[in-house]
């Protein structure tokens, strides 16, 4: 992908809100996780993500093409997931009721991440024809 900074942030919020919420709605009944806590996690991925996107944008400047390879979009889920997990354990995430078991967090976070990544790598272009030519900007 070839994102610009504001495009990264907009796309992250949009896809977490849409795809992330759908996945969460389906997944929560199968996990020892409350809806409230699951959505707090989603919100945290979005908000903390602003910081991550700033970092990715900076790193991208070292690439001549100013692109962000597909694989990076997938693998960055690992540090993001780990950081969020440590923040949860440290009680640094407000609004959370109970910290879920590690495996439940991993399943929820992992499935959401992959679903968002898949959507961003293709289906997103179907309704939003101009999105890929505008660096991921929706508005």
């Amino acid at each position: 992908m070839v994102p610009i900074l504001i495009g990264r942030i907009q796309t992250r919020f949009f896809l977490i809100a849409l795809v992330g919420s759908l996945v969460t709605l389906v997944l929560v009944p199968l996990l020892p996780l409350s809806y409230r806590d699951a959505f707090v996690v989603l919100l945290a991925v979005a908000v903390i993500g602003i910081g991550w996107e700033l970092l990715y944008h900076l790193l991208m400047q070292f690439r001549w093409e100013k692109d962000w390879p597909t694989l990076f979009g997938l693998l960055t889920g690992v540090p993001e997931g780990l950081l969020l997990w440590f923040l949860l354990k440290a009680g640094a995430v407000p609004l959370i009721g109970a910290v879920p078991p590690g495996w439940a967090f991993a399943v929820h976070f992992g499935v959401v991440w992959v679903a968002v990544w898949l959507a961003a790598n293709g289906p997103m272009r179907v309704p939003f024809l101009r999105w890929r030519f505008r660096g991921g900007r929706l508005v």
Partner: protein
Amino acid sequence: MSGELTSRLLESPLWTDAMVHESGIEVRDVPFVTVGGGIGSFVTVDYLRIAGVPTGQIAVLSNIDHPWQTYQYLTRVSQIPVPERIRSDSSSRPDNIWGFPSYALSEAWRERSVRPLLHVLGEPIFADYWTPRAGAVFASLERESARIAYPDMLVKGVVRMVRRRAGGGYFTILTPPAGTTSTKRVAYRSRFVHIAVGYPGLKFLPDLQAFREEHGDFHHVVNAYEPHEHVYESLKTAPGTVMVRGGGIVASRVLQRLMDDREKFGLQTEIEHVFRTFVTGSHGPHRWSRRKGGHGFAYQGFNYPKSVWGGQLKAKMRKLDGEERAAEYRRMGGTNTPKRRRWQQQMQAGRDGGWYRAYRGLVDEVQPGNRLTSIVQRDDGVQRIASDFIIDCTGLEADIADHRLLSDLLTNGGAGRNPLGRLEVERTFEVKGTASGDGALYASGTATLGGYFPGVDTFLGLQVAAQEIADDLARRGWAPRLGPLRSTAQWIRWSLNRPVEGSASWSRS
């Protein structure tokens, strides 16, 4: 036969209906005319059709039968046969305005294999960019052409000129094949014109041009963009030396062919490779602007950095004018080729074996004789280098004024040149200075290189232009604007290979 251009018409930049009537030229009315009928016209018409414009509103004026015909010809002669993979990536799909499913996904589906998908996942870090086979591109274009009823809009002939019409819009003068119409010329009267005529012509290196003209030798000195199969055939019958000039992708393709043949048929071919600029390593002003290079080549996946087609560099260029824009073009442009693993191996084997020699050099002159002798200024002094053939791989970069239609636009149509000397277009791809009443004239493709958007001469770039043009037509109230709902509905039709239909909001036909 009547219906010829009168001197009054030729001399006047602005035509009235009466002037055209007087000449006896047949007039046909259609709101949108696109000139060229190659990939650029095709993707523009594809976009408009999907947005809901009926076929009756569009005329494609072209001298070819299929939109991919010129592209197919140029790729074939420049050593990209149908089974070979082209340069552009998986989501550059001229048959699909969404770029989804990508070519890799389609190939994976067709061949029931996950390999293309794994490849795309690893690119460009663990693998070269995945790119589609030329044959797959032609087949996909054929399918889309039928789906949008492209043949119904096609009118064969050569376009001579486009002139402004008093009262708004344009006249486009077409010379149809002899005997197919009652008048020698036909005038298309339209509100909008789009011009996508591709390459204005072949340009030869001056010393090679001089040699060919002086000695009438078109056999030993060839351009990679003209048929030159005889070179490879001749090397199979007798060992020989080939001089390759240029450091772009076409040079890479020609080297691959020479080296493949050497391996396949056990040939003794020797290669002298002359670069005008010899790149020895990474180059660029600072850490955030450094391109890979080596062994003479500047390495880049596509002809510009990837983000010019949608990311950071696209956004940046859109704001630049004049000298600033020209400077940015210089920084990221220039001749380059992808760093493909197979090509690297072949060239390494050639250097090790001593039969592939690459260096910087300026050729002063080529002399005839038993073999060709090139007088080359090299870093180590002037050298005489003998070869049996010379293949010019330097390009298709003729001046836009070499094209009759573009030249007429510059002299009579109000068009001007951009910082790179090509047609100056707006961000909407309207050619600056050519407006006529409520009409507009657009251009896309290589003729517009040097504008606010650098990626013009590629499938994806032509689609970017198509979108800008379609959106501009929507702003002018002519075509429906393609929004998320219709886009999704049309994508489903594309997937099912159902014909497009006009939009319900189309009330003007």
